[in-house]
């Protein structure tokens, strides 16, 4: 009955690490589990791509080269061309493709059990940290930082391509009656225009929330559900639930790492491309 004595709290795995970082630095720049995961992600994403590309590209591609070409082709044709206009491709295609590869690697690394747990287990006298699944993208700070890059890129590009006056005017939907200061505008029309302006400005900020929350909660909820189903026996204190919990956990794990991990990276990159493209060419 060892299993039932484990004090299993799935939520703590995603919150407690903030309070005990590996290296404490001022200004909240601690090096904790999420930072280690981010470094790992960057190393894997850059390393794998460099390894395959620098080994020499061939006219008759082998397996790994084909895989990289498929990813590149998808970034170019599905993600970037779907949202970005031709003149924005040179600058923003690399950004969007980087977003896709980085977030995808981040999500996939999150599904490999790695020894970064808070609690330690004795294995033949060695104190080994628990193996657990944790994704850097299951952390609002990470996704919010990525979202803010897109947010500022969107508005800086919009102002750079259109000029500030034309750009902010383009937030108002076209075809509305324009307010003239001394014209025969009724107050009702002016109030409506003001309301639409408020909604449009709000919708620009809601984009930050929706873009960052989507990735964050998808990964957090995915990991939590896997952890809860695999640890259901420990949570409920009975072994009879094991035949349901373990298969459900494995099924959800497979769904998450084959579909959701790539899909969320795809969505994040696609929406970034659409937002930036929409700012460059507001009329479309």
């Amino acid at each position: 009955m060892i299993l039932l004595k484990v004090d299993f709290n799935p939520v703590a795995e995603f919150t407690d690490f903030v309070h005990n970082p590996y290296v404490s630095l001022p200004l909240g720049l601690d090096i904790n589990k999420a930072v280690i995961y981010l470094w790992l992600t960057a190393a894997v994403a850059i390393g794998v791509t460099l390894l395959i590309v620098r080994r020499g590209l061939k006219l008759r591609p082998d397996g790994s080269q084909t895989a990289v070409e498929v990813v590149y082709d998808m970034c170019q044709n599905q993600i970037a061309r779907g949202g970005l206009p031709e003149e924005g491709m040179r600058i923003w295609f690399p950004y969007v493709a980087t977003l896709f590869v980085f977030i995808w690697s981040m999500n996939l690394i999150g599904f490999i059990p790695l020894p970064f747990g808070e609690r330690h287990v004795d294995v033949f006298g060695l104190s080994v940290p628990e193996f657990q699944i944790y994704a850097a993208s299951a952390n609002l700070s990470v996704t919010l930082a990525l979202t803010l890059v897109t947010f500022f890129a969107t508005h800086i590009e919009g102002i750079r391509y259109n000029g500030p006056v034309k750009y902010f005017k383009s937030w108002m939907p076209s075809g509305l009656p324009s307010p003239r200061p001394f014209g025969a505008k009724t107050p009702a029309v002016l109030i409506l225009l003001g309301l639409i302006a408020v909604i449009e400005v709000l919708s620009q900020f809601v984009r930050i929330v929706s873009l960052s929350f989507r990735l964050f909660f998808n990964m957090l909820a995915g990991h939590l559900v896997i952890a809860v189903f695999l640890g259901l026996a420990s949570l409920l204190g009975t072994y009879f639930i094991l035949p349901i919990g373990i298969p459900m956990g494995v099924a959800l794990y497979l769904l998450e790492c084959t579909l959701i991990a790539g899909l969320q990276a795809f969505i994040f990159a696609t929406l970034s491309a659409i937002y930036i493209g929409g700012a460059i060419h507001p009329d479309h």
Partner: protein
Amino acid sequence: MALEGNVHDASRALELGLATGLGAIGPGIGVGFIFGKTIEAVGRQPELRGQLQGLMWLGFALTEAIIFYALGMAFVAYAIA
């Protein structure tokens, strides 16, 4: 009848479950619509399958995100209650 036991924690747990469950109803219907309509459209015009699939995943993710608003607010309420 007076309530006994840890009513505070029990109501927090109920809140988390209710908010997430009720919040999942609408997006669940919406996701079903998106996949169903895509299947219909592919059945009508199979040559557009590639384009429709891209739109389908975009719509799926946008709809699914609504669950996470409910879940997020449920967690916030759970944490501050």
